[in-house]
């Protein structure tokens, strides 16, 4: 409750600026229309018009809310125009990529910490991989994986045998998940290496006096020590996976998902649709990161490490 007024104040300020900017940025079109028709516009008409255009430069918040409502509640979720449908496509790629990426990241970190050769060789490549712009590499991954036929999570045959049909999200899922994984593994590697190396000398010496094996040291000391680092990395990794999934949708086929909504929206000047997809993506990111935060709090509490 203590946070209520500050939060409300900030939201109100954003709203005021947004509605103002919306009038300002969309006014040119209104004036052009008026000039062409040879009429004058009053300020009241200007405001009314700029907040209700079909393809505004900057849609007003209530237009986005209306679009979100229309494309989620009023559409069947299997419809190609439902934001829930597209959201689920993006979510599935994000989650699968996140699992790939996190698994990869943890394995690489374990390798780096335990093997000197890996320590020297893996990290430079991991860093190099992140300096390549994802927007450049994503189409290549899509093309290469399509060429070798590795695009569907379960092929049509296998999926039909299992479910009687092939769920839409499985089509073209793999390249998207790989791109999502590409962006999410790096923070996990960096965080886990730091976490697995966080035990101090005394804690390590103690296990040495017990003549504990390397795997013992890993399970009893290194892994629990790294837990706080792991959760921080997972949050960044999840956000990365979502960005990867959205970027991958710009070049994957079939054209689906929140990224595809943004792309088609920009083809046809559907700014309201773009903004609605943006908000859906932001809400999804906040939810996913929030869930990790909840698991983090619960785990650290169970481990007696919560503040």
């Amino acid at each position: 409750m203590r946070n209520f007024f500050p939060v409300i104040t900030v939201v109100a300020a954003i709203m005021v600026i947004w509605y103002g900017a919306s009038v300002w940025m969309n006014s040119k079109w209104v004036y052009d229309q008026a000039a062409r028709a040879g009429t004058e516009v009053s300020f009241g008409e200007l405001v009314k018009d700029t907040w209700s255009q079909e393809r505004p430069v900057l849609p007003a918040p209530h237009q986005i809310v209306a679009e979100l409502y229309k494309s989620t509640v009023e559409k069947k979720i299997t419809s190609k125009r439902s934001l829930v449908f597209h959201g689920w496509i993006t979510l599935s790629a994000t989650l699968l990529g996140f699992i790939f990426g996190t698994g990869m990241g943890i394995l690489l970190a374990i390798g780096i910490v335990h093997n000197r050769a890996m320590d020297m060789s893996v990290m430079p490549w991991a860093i190099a991989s992140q300096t390549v712009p994802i927007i450049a590499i994503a189409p290549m991954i899509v093309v290469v994986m399509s060429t070798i036929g590795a695009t569907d999570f379960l092929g049509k045959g296998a999926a039909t045998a299992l479910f009687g049909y092939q769920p839409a999200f499985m089509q073209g899922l793999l390249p998207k998940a790989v791109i999502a994984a590409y962006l999410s593994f790096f923070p996990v590697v960096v965080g886990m290496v730091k976490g697995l190396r966080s035990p101090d000398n005394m804690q390590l010496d103690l296990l040495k006096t017990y003549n504990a094996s390397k795997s013992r040291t890993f399970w009893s000391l290194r892994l629990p020590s790294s837990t706080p680092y792991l959760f921080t990395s997972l949050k960044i990794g999840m956000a990365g996976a979502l960005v990867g999934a959205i970027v991958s949708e710009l070049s994957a086929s079939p054209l689906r998902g929140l990224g595809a909504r943004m792309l088609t929206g920009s083809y046809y000047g559907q700014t309201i649709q773009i903004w609605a997809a943006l908000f859906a993506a932001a809400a999804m990111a906040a939810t996913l990161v929030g869930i990790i935060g909840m698991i983090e709090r619960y785990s650290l509490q169970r481990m007696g490490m919560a503040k």
Partner: protein
Amino acid sequence: MTTETVIKAENLDLTFHTNDGDVHALKDINLDIQKGDFVSFIGPSGCGKTTFLRTIAALETPTAGSVCVNGMPADEARKNRAYGYVFQAAGLYPWRTIRGNIRLPLEIMGFPKKEQEDHISKVLDLVDLRGFGKKFPWQLSGGMQQRASIARALAFNADILLMDEPFGALDEIVRDHLNEQLLKLWDRTNKTIAFVTHSIPEAVYLSTKIVVMSPRPGRISDVIESTLPRERPLDIRDTKEFLDIAHRVREGLRAGHAYDE
């Protein structure tokens, strides 16, 4: 008289190579510790007490000379889990409860489940921490954490205890109490104990043998065999015999310092 040498250091030398030069931490250390001895190491800060204890534990490798524990090289003794080590700081794992921390060595050494719990309860009683087993380390005071770390070193019944200033952070009363407890434990179990301290009365009260060390390079300047009986009530500290030994320790420490000037 059966005397069996449990720890034997011969011509021990240890130099640390650091970025800003070499540190000669131990020089010409020769020492025999018999089974059942209670040996205290005393000396000014930085004279190599911790380093010597760590060398016995095979946590440091000597530059020259050798350390034998139970008749084998120190590293082999470590692999045989010959000793329990109490570090200068408690070093409990924050994600384990007190019981969980004490269980750690028992798990690693493969004690049966039932036996683990028995051992834990027994050593918790010994250090007066009964009822705190389910707490996490941060819920305990520094002194209680230190006691828990002693319990952890006692839990697996090693014959040798290496203790690095275990009571350094405790108040006098608790310290007296734990000194008594430790003596009782030592008397009952016939463990061999190597004990680092800064306190002359503590060293004299506990030890059968007091090793006085002096710094730069760290070496042994005096070894004092205590003439006190094994049975030692706290008020033995007011006897003439006690004060005489304490006096000799103080002289030894002073001589070490004079050498320094």
